[in-house]
C-alpha cells in the first residue's frame, strides 16, 4: 500500500514538470506578437521590451525555462500584467473562495445524494423509488452551468429569494446567503451520481446473506438499512470523493462566472480572455496541482478499498 502511494507520488513529479513545460511554452504558442495582443496599440517599445523580458522571450527557451522553474520553486509565479501584482498573491486571495465553494458543493451533494439514495433503497420497487431514480438520473445529466442558470431563474429572477451575484458583504449571514445558490448549482450533477451510487450499493448490501439473517430474526427493514447496510455502503462513496472534488473543481469555473464570484476558475477565465500570460500560467498551475492531488486521493482511496490493488 505504502509502495503504491510512493509510486504514484513519484509519477506525479515528472507529470507536473511537463505541465510546467506546456504552460511555459504558452508564450511561444499563443498566436501573434505578445506585445501587440497583450498591450495593444498603445504599446511603447519600452513596454514591449519589458514584457518580453518578463515572459522570458528575450533569452533562448531553455534558459528561460530554467529560470521559470527556479522561480516556481522559490514560490515566485511571476507578476500579473494587468493587475501588476504578484501572481501568487492574486491567486491566494481568490483561492479560499473556490475552496469554500467546492467543499460546500461536495457537502451538499453527499448529504442530499445519500438521503435520496437511502430513501430509494428503503422503498425499493415502489413508485417513490422510480421517481427518485428518475430524479437522480436527470440531475446527474444536468450540467453545472445549466443548474446555475435555472437556479438563478427560479430563485433570483422569479422569487427574488437568492442573490445572483457576488459573495456578500462579509457578514456570515450574507456570505451564506450568497453561497446557497452557487453551492447548490455546483452540487446538482454530483448529487445524482451519489444518489445512484448509494442506492445500488445499499441494495447490493441488502442482498447479502447476513442481512437475510437479521431479517429472519424479525429486525425491521428500516433498522437493517440504516444500521447495517449503511455502514457497508458508505465505502464506495468515500472512494469516489476524490473523483468528485476533481469534478467540482471543474464545475466551479462555471459557477464562479455565472454568479460573478471571485475564485480560481473565474481568475483563469478572465486571465485567458485578457491574455495575461503569467496569471494564466500561475492559475492553471495551481488548478492542475489541486486537480492532481484530488485524483491522487481518489486513486489511493480506490486502492484502499479494493483489496486487489493493495496486493500489488
Amino acid at each position, binding site marked *: 500500500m505504502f509502495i503504491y502511494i510512493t509510486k504514484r507520488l513519484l509519477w506525479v513529479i515528472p507529470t507536473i514538470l511537463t505541465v510546467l513545460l506546456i504552460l511555459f511554452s504558452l508564450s511561444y504558442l499563443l498566436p501573434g506578437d505578445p506585445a501587440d495582443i497583450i498591450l495593444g496599440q498603445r504599446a511603447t517599445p519600452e513596454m514591449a521590451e519589458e514584457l518580453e523580458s518578463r515572459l522570458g522571450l528575450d533569452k533562448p527557451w531553455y534558459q528561460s525555462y530554467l529560470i521559470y522553474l527556479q522561480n516556481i520553486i522559490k514560490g515566485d509565479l511571476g507578476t500579473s500584467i494587468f493587475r501588476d501584482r504578484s501572481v501568487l498573491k492574486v491567486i491566494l486571495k481568490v483561492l479560499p473562495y473556490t475552496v469554500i465553494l467546492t467543499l460546500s458543493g461536495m457537502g451538499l451533494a453527499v448529504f442530499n445524494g445519500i438521503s435520496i439514495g437511502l430513501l430509494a433503497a428503503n422503498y425499493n420497487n415502489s413508485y417513490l423509488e422510480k421517481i427518485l431514480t428518475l430524479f437522480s438520473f*436527470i440531475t446527474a445529466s444536468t450540467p453545472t452551468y445549466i443548474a446555475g442558470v435555472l437556479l438563478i431563474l427560479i430563485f433570483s429572477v422569479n422569487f427574488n429569494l437568492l442573490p445572483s451575484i457576488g459573495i456578500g458583504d462579509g457578514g456570515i449571514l450574507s456570505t451564506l446567503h450568497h453561497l446557497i445558490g452557487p453551492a447548490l448549482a455546483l452540487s446538482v450533477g454530483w448529487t445524482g451520481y451519489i444518489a445512484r451510487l448509494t442506492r445500488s450499493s445499499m441494495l447490493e448490501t441488502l442482498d447479502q446473506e447476513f442481512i437475510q439473517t437479521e431479517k429472519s430474526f424479525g429486525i425491521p427493514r428500516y433498522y437493517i438499512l440504516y444500521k447495517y447496510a449503511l455502514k457497508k455502503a458508505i465505502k464506495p462513496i468515500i472512494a469516489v470523493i476524490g473523483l468528485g472534488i476533481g469534478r467540482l473543481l471543474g464545475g466551479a469555473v462555471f459557477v464562479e462566472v455565472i454568479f460573478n464570484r471571485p475564485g480560481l476558475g473565474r481568475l483563469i477565465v478572465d486571465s485567458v480572455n485578457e491574455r495575461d500570460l503569467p496569471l494564466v500560467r500561475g492559475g*492553471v498551475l495551481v488548478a492542475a496541482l489541486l486537480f492532481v492531488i484530488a485524483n491522487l486521493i481518489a486513486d489511493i482511496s480506490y486502492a484502499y478499498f479494493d483489496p486487489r490493488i493493495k496486493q500489488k
Partner: protein
Amino acid sequence: MFKSQKFFRFKKKIIRVIKIMKNDYKAYLGGLIIMLILISAIFAPFIVPADPYKTNVTKRLEGPSLENFMGTDSLGRDILSRLIYAARPAVLVAFGGIIISVIIGIILGLLAAYVGGILGSIILFIFDVIRAFPPIILILVLLSIIGPSLLSVIVILGVTIMPRYGRVVRAETLSEKEEDFVEAARSLGADNSRIIFKHILPNIFASVLVLSGMDMASMIMWEAGLSFLGLGLQPPLSSWGVMLQESYQYIQTAPLMIVWPALAIMLTMFGFSTFAESLRVALNPKLNQEV
C-alpha cells in the same frame, strides 16, 4: 474458417445484446431522443417553421406565440428554428469528438499494451499529463492557443477525452493478452497483428461503446458550456451553448428565453446517457441475472 467463426460469435453477441435492450425501456427512451436530435440535425432545413437567420427588430424578445412557438430572441429571430438548427453543431461535436477520442485512444492504447516498454510508458505519461488538468481548463487554454471554431472545439474535446479510452483499451488489452484463448491462438501459429486483433478488439469493443455513450453527452455539455462562457463557438455561428449565452444577458427581461436551449441540452444529454446505460446493462453479463 477461423476468422468466420469469430465473426459469427460476434454477431451472436450483438443479437443477444439487442434482444436484451429490446426489453429495456431505457433503450427506447434514449434511442428515441437520440433519433429526434439526429433528425433535427440532418433535416433541419426541411422541418424548421421559419428562417433561423431572419432578424426582425420589431419582434424582439417576444414570448411564445402561434407564430413563434418558443418566442423570439434579442434580434427577433425565431427561437424554435434556431434551436433545431443548433442540433447540427451538437451532433457534430458529439460524434466528431468521440470518433477522434476513440480512434486515437484505441491506437495509443493498443500500442501501449502491445509494444509496452518505453513506448508504453511514454504513452501512459502523455495520458497522465493530459489528465493532470481539469478538463475545462485544458480545453480553455488549448482553445486560446488555437482559436475557437467548430473544428478546433471538436479536435480539442477529442484530444482531452482521449486518455480515458487509451487507458481502458490498454488495460483490457493487457488482460486479454494473458487470456488462454490468445495463448491457444498463438500456439496455433497466429500472427500477432492479424488474428489477435480480431480476438481482442471485439472484447474491448463493449467497454468502449458504453464509455462513448456517456462521453457523447459530456462533449455536448462541454461545447455548450464553453460557448456559454463565450469561449467556444462565436456568433454568428450558433449552438445551444451560444443561445444560452445570448439568453443569459436577457434573463431579467425575458427569463423564458433561456429555458429552451437549456432544455435542449439537458434532453440530449439525458438521451445519450440513458441509452448508454441500457447498453451498459445489456453488455455486462453479470448484471443480466435477476434471479
